[in-house]
């Protein structure tokens, strides 16, 4: 049984088909990469999984349960968390509160205030932001704000984490640190799907990769297979 | 049959005014992104300027040529100073919308108070074109038919202007995506201010036309029309000017129909608009032609 499975997912915006009959799956413990040119539908696919959007047709199944059409907060409590392409932290709340919120509301075990605070502090330590706990989130650099997002997503104790362009805008050192972080997250038992444009990261970290173009899935396989795929090379060189 | 003519023509009369008022609000919210709850007060000012002009011998219909530009200038300046300042300080569109809403309500207080000081709170009226015209055997007041015709004409002129002219293109570009439009050479600050000014002008002209047919009152007139405009804009679809035009006509006919229904009466016309509003919000918030 796949942890998460999508079947023939389709969604349109006006006349544009953003995602077209996409099938995909991810197994527990995997790191799945989602790549494709800009506008290919990657974030839209994430939006379908996290219930930000409802598909026109197709189903999404999580742990054998059909979660199509469920509300975003329910998706979170069921065990799927995400970060956002454009960082959506709570700017005027402290770093700690950003994470605490998710621990209090997103965790299906409903921790007490004290437990949530402890869990949040542990997560801040995990991502390396413990020192900034009391600072308003808007005071941090972009790279650190992305770490807040990761800690916040993990605070709801998900089984599946969706990372949307975690490494965009990071320099080489930061990218290496981020790759490390992703591996450590997997080591904690969280399955990951990641959208990325940084090829080095995708190739080194992912077990499997899915390639989208114009809303359709055009290739799927191991990093090796994808690197050698003619179609993928064409699509990327062609742009 | 008589009743049908009463409802339809009566509806078009109401609807013509509603359309004009609502198109103005649609321009202000759809493009300039200000939910101008003072809109009705600009309408009231237009009505009273016409009243004052006609006291001094100016034909009310001609006064539109003064009211329109005057309110355009007021709206333009207001936007270029206050709202542009708010826009530049707002970290995101949501904050701009709330802050401009609050500023608009500040203007609601200011404009209404100025009008009350000048004209007091008693209803004013004057007679103009007091004859009746017969359509299909039913008598209608000449002034109302003329007002409706002018309202529809002005509405159509504005619509063509926005659809065809260069300025209109700039406006539509700014409505779609202000930042991209500015990158392409559209002077955003001026264009948005133009929209706001046009919106105010349309409200003022509608007010002038209303003063021809009905008594006007400084402290109660405005709010009612603002509420109606809000319902029409939602019915037509937020951001669609032609939607507001059509929505205004539809609501006018609904109001007319409700007014003539025995048990309900004209008091409940506005309540019926609100029922439509509730249904829209429950079933189709996008409205008829909304994006």
């Amino acid at each position, binding site marked *: 049984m796949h942890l998460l499975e999508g079947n023939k997912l389709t969604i349109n915006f006006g006349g544009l088909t953003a995602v077209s009959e996409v099938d995909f799956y991810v197994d527990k413990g995997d790191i799945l990469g989602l790549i494709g040119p800009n506008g290919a539908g990657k974030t839209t696919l994430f939006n379908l999984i*996290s219930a930000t959007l409802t598909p026109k047709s197709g189903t999404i199944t999580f742990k054998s349960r059909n979660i199509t059409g469920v*509300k*975003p*907060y329910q*998706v*979170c*409590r069921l065990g799927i*968390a995400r970060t*956002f392409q454009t960082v*959506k*932290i*709570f*700017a*005027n*709340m402290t770093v700690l509160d950003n994470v*605490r*919120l*998710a621990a*209090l*509301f*997103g965790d299906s075990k409903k921790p007490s*205030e004290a437990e949530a605070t402890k869990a949040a502090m542990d997560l801040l330590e995990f991502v390396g932001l413990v020192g900034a706990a009391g600072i308003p989130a808007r005071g941090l650099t972009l790279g650190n704000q992305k770490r807040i997002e990761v800690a*916040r*997503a993990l*605070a*709801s104790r998900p089984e599946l984490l969706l990372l949307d362009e975690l490494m965009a805008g990071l320099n080489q050192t930061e990218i290496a640190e981020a790759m490390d972080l992703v591996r450590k997250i997997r080591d904690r038992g969280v399955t990951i799907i990641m959208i990325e444009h940084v090829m080095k990261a995708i190739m080194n970290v992912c077990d499997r990769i899915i390639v989208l173009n114009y809303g359709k899935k055009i290739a799927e396989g191991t990093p090796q297979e994808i690197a050698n795929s003619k179609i993928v090379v064409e699509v990327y060189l062609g742009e | 049959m008589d009743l049908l003519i009463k409802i339809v023509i009566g509806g078009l009369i109401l609807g013509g005014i509603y359309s004009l008022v609502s198109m103005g609000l649609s321009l202000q919210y759809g493009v300039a992104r200000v*939910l101008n*709850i003072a809109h009705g007060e600009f309408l009231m000012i237009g009505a009273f300027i016409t009243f004052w002009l006609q006291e001094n011998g100016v034909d009310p219909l001609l006064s539109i040529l003064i009211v329109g530009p005057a309110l355009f200038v007021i709206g333009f300046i207001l936007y270029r100073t206050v709202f542009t300042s*708010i826009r530049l*300080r707002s970290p995101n569109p*949501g*904050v701009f*919308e*709330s*802050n401009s809403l609050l*500023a608009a*309500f*500040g*203007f609601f*207080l*200011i404009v209404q*108070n*100025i009008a*009350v*000081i000048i004209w007091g709170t008693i209803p004013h009226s004057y007679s103009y074109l007091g004859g009746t015209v017969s359509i299909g055997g039913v008598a209608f007041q000449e002034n109302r038919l003329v007002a409706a015709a002018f309202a529809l004409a002005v509405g159509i002129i504005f619509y063509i202007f926005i659809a065809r002219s260069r300025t209109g293109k700039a406006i539509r570009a700014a409505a779609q995506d202000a930042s991209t439009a500015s990158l392409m050479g559209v002077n955003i600050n001026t264009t948005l201010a133009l929209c706001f000014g046009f919106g105010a002008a349309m409200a003022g002209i509608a007010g002038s036309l209303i003063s021809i047919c009905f008594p006007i009152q400084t402290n109660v007139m405005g*709010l*009612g029309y603002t*509420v109606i405009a*809000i*319902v029409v804009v*939602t019915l037509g679809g937020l951001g669609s000017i032609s939607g507001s035009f059509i929505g205004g006509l539809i609501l006018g006919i609904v109001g007319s129909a409700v007014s003539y229904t025995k048990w309900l*009466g004209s*008091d*409940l016309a*506005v*309540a019926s608009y*609100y029922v439509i*509003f509730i249904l829209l*919000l429950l079933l189709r*918030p996008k409205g008829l032609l909304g994006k």
Partner: protein
Amino acid sequence: MDFSKRDWKKAFITAGIPVIILVVLAFFPMYGWQYGITLFNHFLLFVVLSVAWTIFSGTTGYISLATAAFFGIGIYAAALVYPSVGDRYPLFVVVLIGAAASFVLAFIVGAITLRLKGIYFAMFTFGLVLIVRELLYWYEITVEGRRGRIVKFEGNDTIYYYLLAIAAVTILVAYLIKRSKFGLALQSIGENEEAAAHMGVNVTMVKVFTYAVSAFFMGAVGVIMATKWSYVDPGVAFAPMMSFSPVLMAIFGGFGSIYGPVIGAVIFSYIEEILKTGNWSRYYMLIFGTILVVTILFLPSGLVGLIQNVWRRVMGRRRASA
């Protein structure tokens, strides 16, 4: 648990000062200063409305312009259930009835409009006062055949104690919400609603419930004001200005904190008192409107925000020179 000296000091200031103020205010009527009591009644009314408004709109950012509607429902509940002649419930019960009625109306309004973007909510609440008023006029005239109702008049002192109690409860509830995880959720909705939803917050439920809670207090205070005005008809009960004043007061005072709206309410209701009885009464809307626009432009965090900024700068300078 470790209570440092600093914690005790903080607890004393947070809880102690309001309690002291409350005790002082409670003994106020004993001095028999009638004008003072009337003035304070005026203050307390607007403190409740402004703080109640801030509980929802100050945190989530959804601007509600329906305060007058919920206030009016409370007034009308008193008109129906606390008449000057005939059977009636005890005043305390009537307050709860009025508050509950407003709670229900707000819940319905919220359920319809808070699923949608903020602008729909603002638009809908804006017209609500007028619509409820028109409906009630129609009902009273057509169905009941009457113009207005008379509510049993209560003395200044009774009104004072009820208003003081309602104000105290409103402020206490606002404080407790703010400090709770519910308050954290409200704040997150105001910061970034989409993110909050994805972090497990049932945003619609939180918004609707909080909105209803804020309306509860508006309705409660409406019942009491009905006993002061005595004559009630839909026009008296549903006045659009009552939607606008609390907003102005909260904005001016600064809606980031609880004492912001309190300060704004006291200052503005006092200005209103002075203006209404003096030569300037014709200009009060103009003055209020101007202050509102100026506040939006130059004082976005309100008076309290301004004071906090100044305080911070003063503190910073002191530390730097130490």
